């Protein structure tokens, strides 16, 4: 593997409690899944690299607590964030309402250059006999209106999880040649071990 320029990108995950924020990160970082993931208190911090053809993106991920009262801490996370993932649970319409709120708060408060992905998680649970589902078109419409990336995922099966981060990485502006990008030896994590075949990012 040749040495490529590496850029560090601060990413924040937002969304209602129990929509699967931590599970998405766990799948992305360790390719694991836990059926009953403990609620995150305050925040958890993780990093993972994403290899693009001509550069490496190192995501510095702040995984936040979902309960409403922790929202007062949120500005601390999204201050200076270059990327955000707003997550909802496709089987919980209320969580989609919350996702709308997060998107408008990010647009109002966060850096104007922030790249946002809207993610509908738990598609593996969506079925006719499982109650109301947030329609894919609904998520897509919100994403189109607000200029967001949009994907439906399952942290459980791994479907589309890598793609969220690849899409974000691709959309992040490439730094000017002489700017913040630093030369670094690429990490030793064998990212190709991820079984998620549809991933086009080398993550």
């Amino acid at each position: 593997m040749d040495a490529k320029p590496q850029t560090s990108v601060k990413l924040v995950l937002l969304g209602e409690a129990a929509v699967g924020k931590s599970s998405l990160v766990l799948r992305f970082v360790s390719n694991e899944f836990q059926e009953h993931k403990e609620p995150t208190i305050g925040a958890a911090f993780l990093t993972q690299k994403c290899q693009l053809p001509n550069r490496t993106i190192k995501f510095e991920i702040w995984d936040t607590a979902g309960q409403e009262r922790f929202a007062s801490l949120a500005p601390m996370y999204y201050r200076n964030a270059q990327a955000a993932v707003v997550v909802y649970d496709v089987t919980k319409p209320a969580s989609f309402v919350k996702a709308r709120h997060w998107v408008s708060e990010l647009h109002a408060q966060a850096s104007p250059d922030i790249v946002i992905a809207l993610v509908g998680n738990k598609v593996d649970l969506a079925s006719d006999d499982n109650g109301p589902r947030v329609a894919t078109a609904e998520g897509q419409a919100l994403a189109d209106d607000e200029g967001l990336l949009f994907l439906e995922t399952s942290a459980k099966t791994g479907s589309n999880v890598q793609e969220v981060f690849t899409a974000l990485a691709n959309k992040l502006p490439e730094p000017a040649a002489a700017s913040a990008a630093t030369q670094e030896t690429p990490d030793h994590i064998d990212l190709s071990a991820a079984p998620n075949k549809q991933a086009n990012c080398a993550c």
Partner: protein
Amino acid sequence: MSSSEEDDHSAHGIAESFDPPFNMPVVFKRAAADLSARHEATTDDQQSSDIPDIYGPDEGSPYPETEIEKQIQSRIKADILRSKLNYSDPFDEVHDRYGFRRQTAKISLDQYNAWWKEYRPYIQRRERKWQNLMSEVGLYHKDTTNPPTRFPPRSSKVTRYIRKGIPAAWRGNAWFWYAQGPQYLAKHPGLYDFLWKRAFANHNRDAEVIERDLHRTFPDNLLFANHNQTDDESPMISALRRVLLAYSEYMPATGYCQSLNFLAGVFLIFLDEEKAFWMLVIITQKYLPGMHDENLEGANIDQGVLMISVKDTLPTVWSKIGMGFDGFSADQVRETTDSAGATSLDDKELLTHSRASTEFIRKLPPITLSTTSWFMSGFIGTLPFESVVRIWDCFFYEGSKVFFRIALTILKLCEPELNALSDPIDVFQTVQDVPKSMVDPNYLLTSCFKRNNGFGHISEAEVRARRMYVSEIRRRSSRGQLGLNRNGNTPSDQNFQQWDNKMYKFQKRSNSPLLHGLPLRLRMHRLKLAADNHT
């Protein structure tokens, strides 16, 4: 309990006496009325006449008897399940003596087993020591199998014994005793049952958010996991539901806050659910006041206190963790916003200094995103479980200062690793991950309590004074609007600067950034004086 023992408690002043808003034995109906009044304040659609008086034995319960019966049955099952723990022997090859997995993300099975081999003889030795101590004071007899429910009054010997660890089988009762649980229980007999039944009958407003977290509480623990592969949940999960619902009924201002599930879960491993409920009330009202409230301001205040203590006692650690995301030191002052109103050079300098000394309290450094959970969850999930319960041994006996001391110790133990870091972002990873691999509680606690460990010993009075100081600064800067200063907006009004000014002046007079060295009463007085002058 004798009055002298009560005096002993109050003399140590873990916290002021807490008086719940009503007293059960008098009339249950009055309690129900009081509660329904509080309930109405939050839900408009509920008519007061709809609120059933489910406790009154004469009126009969509107709540299905079968459901109540089912809950009572599950309570019995939970007690049976708990009684299977002997707290000495590991469950099996992969689980520890509390039912948790020995292997964690940061501790391998081999590491655990190597530690346990050393630790087991240690706890057996400590158990014998405790038995002797308790026999001497007539609180334990070798023939009885039940764990003691009363424990010896405070003394330097007892403190030493507690810091070396309470026998696990006695642990729950000792926590309960030293936290003054028996007084709460005696004052409110039957209240716990009243509350959970009421929560079921009234569709408690937090029921849904509580439900969401029940199965996410200790999913790896044998007591909580549903391991018989049927749809029936573990009786411990049912117990957790009742405790959290009862708490939400009793403390509607707090309701349910994520992390209470973990605190209650640990209490349920060591105590029956009624006592677990009272411990949850006591820990949130006396030991960690306001920490789990709607605005989490109690949590923010304690983070402010922690950051002050780090700044004072661990300057090299502070130089690493006091950083903002932007790489600026959190107590660095931005000339443009802060000294704009200053006219003379002196004023400017004064303001710069005063703002610098408190800026990090108003706008907590990002490291507190990690350390907040240490306090809210009592180190559950931060440290290995054995360390958590050893810390709680000291915490319920000595007071909330223990959490601050432990937090400082963890950061001190991180110091060598922190010093080696060049990328500021790695600081977060280190502070988050290093404690998870601290397998030996004896090392942590010895480091914490040894003399001359380099960062002084914060007293309970000091914690109170610092909480008041931080609370005052935050209150004045945000005018009660937490979002404002968390947002990074700098309040720039004149009053605010005056307050800073005053703080700086008497800090300077006392020759300490924190009014150190002044008697507590004088410090409180000065704080109050400055506050009064200000308004």
